[in-house]
């Protein structure tokens, strides 16, 4: 059962990461990038690395996506 969850999360992370690359709209890509981070959080936690999971949740899914969004806003304003 755990193996199934791990494997499905692996596949989901890879699929979402692929979706980030082919995505045309940048905000959507950023939100999907957050999804990749969330999947990685689950994987880190399952592989007994709660410290790394916490870092990924805070930095990957939280602040970096928000910084990307803010940068995108400024970029759109300047164009």
């Amino acid at each position, binding site marked *: 059962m755990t193996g199934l969850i791990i494997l499905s999360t*692996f596949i989901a992370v*890879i699929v979402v*990461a*692929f979706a980030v*690359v*082919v995505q045309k709209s940048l905000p959507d890509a950023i939100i999907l990038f957050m999804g990749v981070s969330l999947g990685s959080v689950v994987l880190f936690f399952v592989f007994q690395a*709660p*410290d790394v*999971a*916490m*870092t990924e949740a*805070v*930095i990957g899914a*939280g*602040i970096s996506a*928000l*910084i990307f969004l*803010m*940068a995108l806003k*400024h970029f759109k*304003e300047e164009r």
Partner: protein
Amino acid sequence: MNFKRDISTKTYSGFALSALLVLTILNVLLQNIPGKVERAGEKLLELNAQEGVANAVTTVVVYFRGFDTLGEIAVLFIAALGIGLMLSSHSKVPHKEESNFILQKASKLLFPVIMLFGVYVMIYGHLSPGGGFQGGVIIASGVLLLLISDQNFEIPHSVISALETFAGIAYVLIGLIGLVVLDRFLGNFLPHDISEMGMLFSGGIIPLVYIVVGIKVGSEMSLIVQNLIKRNDDD
């Protein structure tokens, strides 16, 4: 035509990277090397027990690789400096649009909770998962929430720079005291008895260093976020 080729290049490189990732994961999963891994972990835990810190990862990050952590903080500081140089606003122009009612009220409610959680993660870094980096970024995300909800809110630069300077100097000073007392940079000169493992006051300098790291990371990330939000719009 050029654009199309660009997209297809991206697609192929994405495929190649995914395949590489899958192969690496399969390699890791299929390779059966329990002996090696166990021995390294046991040795690490043995060394960790001497410092009396419950969370072995914290011992590695702050103590065994404490100098690397100092370097990481320096890198973060340089990043904050670069963003500040590029984006700092000379004339403070408040945002034109008012944030909505729900955000304004909910941020007032959530901000203390986020701050408390950040400080908790920071102070309990040597006992539970988390630590200075994570706690600092959580605090910065709380500041970000206030910045989004209230246009007039701003942390004075003097406060941020004072906190950051204090934290940086404290880190180096703790390391230098260790160098003087124990002939080792970041030597654990405070009492760290193994019988106190798991208590809040345990582990000698390790929790102190992680709190200092938390203050520094929190102030730097807050500065980055504030510079990005309060940027002067020229139009």
